């Protein structure tokens, strides 16, 4: 690093990487972390998602959690939303399934329909 410009470029690059979690256009993953989710293994699922995203340098994805949604038998539940696409809820997501969901859905944009327990239309589709 030699100049102020270098420093500014580094700042922009870092900000891009962090991609401010509040950005509305960011892909989003939500893991069910109620008592039922935790007992079913949601922590390992979330750690697998974090590890896979970190390895693939996809630091723009917003990772979040939610409480019990009433579908305890299908925990751990993972909800994936890509901007402008329907939200897909996956059930019984163990760490290996979680890694595949990250790769297929979050990175390649192809939902793993076999494991989906619900598909919710995006807000734009709802308006129609």
């Amino acid at each position: 690093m030699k100049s102020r410009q270098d420093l500014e470029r580094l700042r922009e690059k870092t900000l891009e990487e962090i991609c401010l979690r509040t950005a509305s256009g960011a892909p989003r993953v939500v893991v069910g972390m109620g008592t039922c989710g935790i007992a079913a293994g949601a922590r390992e699922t979330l750690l697998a998602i974090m590890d896979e995203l970190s390895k693939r340098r996809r630091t723009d994805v917003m990772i979040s959690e939610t409480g019990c949604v009433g579908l305890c038998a299908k925990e751990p539940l993972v909800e994936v939303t890509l901007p402008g696409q329907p939200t897909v809820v996956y059930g019984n997501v163990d760490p290996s399934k979680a890694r595949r969901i990250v790769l297929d859905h979050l990175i390649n944009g192809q939902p793993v329909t076999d494991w989906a327990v619900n598909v919710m239309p995006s807000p734009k589709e709802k308006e129609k």
Partner: protein
Amino acid sequence: MTEISLHLLDVLENSAKAGATRVRVFLGEDDEGENLVLEVEDDGRGMSPDEVSRALDPFFTTTPGKKVGLGLALLRGTAEAAGGRVRVRSLPGKGAVVTATFRLRSVDRPPLGDIPGTLETFVMCHPGIELDFTWKTRKGSFHANTRKQIPPGDRGSLDAVVAFAEKLSAGMKQAGFEPDKGGFDVEIETRS
């Protein structure tokens, strides 16, 4: 719950739901080395005396639309099976303190489990909550604080959380933390 760390995560999630901005966690042995102590203190909205008295009841919850609240009831089950107890102290607007004790050498005491992974999960999902964690046993002690160790602009960033978790894991290992098999394991070690 198969590990004490899962109970910890569950209690931490309660604090987050209560709107806490700061959570203090103590995990370690008591002075006599007889009991394992888990204490979670938050500055959330707290509970009324009536809510405190029913907090350990599995059929009581403050969540609208739900009929059961199993988290603290399960913690009580685990603690009492291991010869310990759970104590809940709280006042409205003054946060809450949940203290669970387990007899260290009770054969029914579950393993501690993945404590660093548990804290990593919580810090990732709740970037706005300051987590202050202390681990203390006769082998050593360790302290971590997310506000001091993660710069404000990086809170919630995957890289920063992973780096924090790595430091946490290394620090705890240095302070004598290692994966255990629960009270049964300690009992066998003591005898041999």
